[in-house]
């Protein structure tokens, strides 16, 4: 499951992907927050 690093691959594009995944996680937390606090 964990992705192997192969040096060349994990350049600026890898960081961009990581950034996008971090954004996705923030979105998930925001969706949860929204549904729990503003849901009703």
């Amino acid at each position: 499951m964990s992705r192997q690093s192969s040096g060349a691959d994990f350049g600026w594009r890898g960081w961009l992907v990581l950034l996008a995944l971090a954004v996705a996680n923030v979105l998930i937390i925001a969706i949860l927050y929204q549904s729990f606090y503003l849901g009703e």
Partner: protein
Amino acid sequence: MAIYLVVFIALAAALAYGKTRAAPDLTPAIEKIFPAATTLEPAGGIYSVFDDAGESLGWAASAKATGYGGPLLLVVGIDREGEIAGVEVVEHRETPIFFRMVRSDAYLEEVVGSDFQEVEYDYENVVGVTGATRTSDAIVAGLRSAVTEVAGEKFDVRLPAPPRSFEFGLLEIVVLALFTAGIAANRAGGSVRRWMRWACQLTGLLVIGFWAASPISLAKITSLISGYFPDLYSNLAFYLLIVGFVATTLLYRRNIYCLYVCPFGAAQRCVGVIGGMNLKLSALAGRFLETARNVVVFAAIFAAFITLQPALASYEPFAALFALTGSTLQWLLLFVALTLSLVVRTPWCSFLCPMRSIEIVLRNLGVWGRGLLPGGTERTHE
């Protein structure tokens, strides 16, 4: 194993806490249905409603039914002429956006003011709101059961029994076929496996995704664990999916659901073909992201248990893609996940999907369970 124990105890405590909350008061709902009501006399689950002159206005009864996110409690009022005076949902655990859609559906408007004997109570004949069929089914089931109670007690009328046949249609056949084909493909290996996987996933994408819009979601799993079992007769496909997921992961040790059946996995692979890239993250980044995902899943289930609102645990962008409904944030999440699929293989499955966290727990439980079997060691595939 220690971490599992801590997680298990925390979730059990949250669920126990959620279950201790008091039952809601029905009075405001009854007063809303009968605005002239001043006195309520409860007897055997039915409230007789009187105005300030002591004249009887009618009767009200409550009923529970299981919706998408858990139980749904509603109150139905019937006036002295046998017309339905109103339907009020007192408590529900549905996703707010879907609940609003069902509330504003024409069905409920038609019901109010109709003679209770002329109302259509069969699921199949009620046009459910797309993407919220379980919410509308629950309202119909609750309405039927409350009306049956008042009809029998006060009007001496027996409503015909609800249809009790399994809804076995295209969706159920496809679900069974996909799990069977998935297991067969997994055994076959090689290019047969590759082609069969594409065939299964595309079928899942079209039928379970775009046609039925019913992939497994965290809300459904949380709802089951909380003890809210949706009606077996009208939710057969859902049970088949859950049983297939758990059984193949636990017993067959391959998660056939995620690999062959899940429509969102298929959607990502399709986008991946367009992108044609397979960017890999470092092992450390992967581990970090997986931990983050597990923590988020735990927090979502924990909060859902404490509030006993399983539907609120759902953050997957499935409904946005398959039922074309969702909040702005869910649409954004869908956009990020599909865009990422262009450069990384199935990024949602690998780093964000709660099903993966649950799969890992199941796998570890399976390994642990097999260790307890006589013989004590791991068995190989049958």
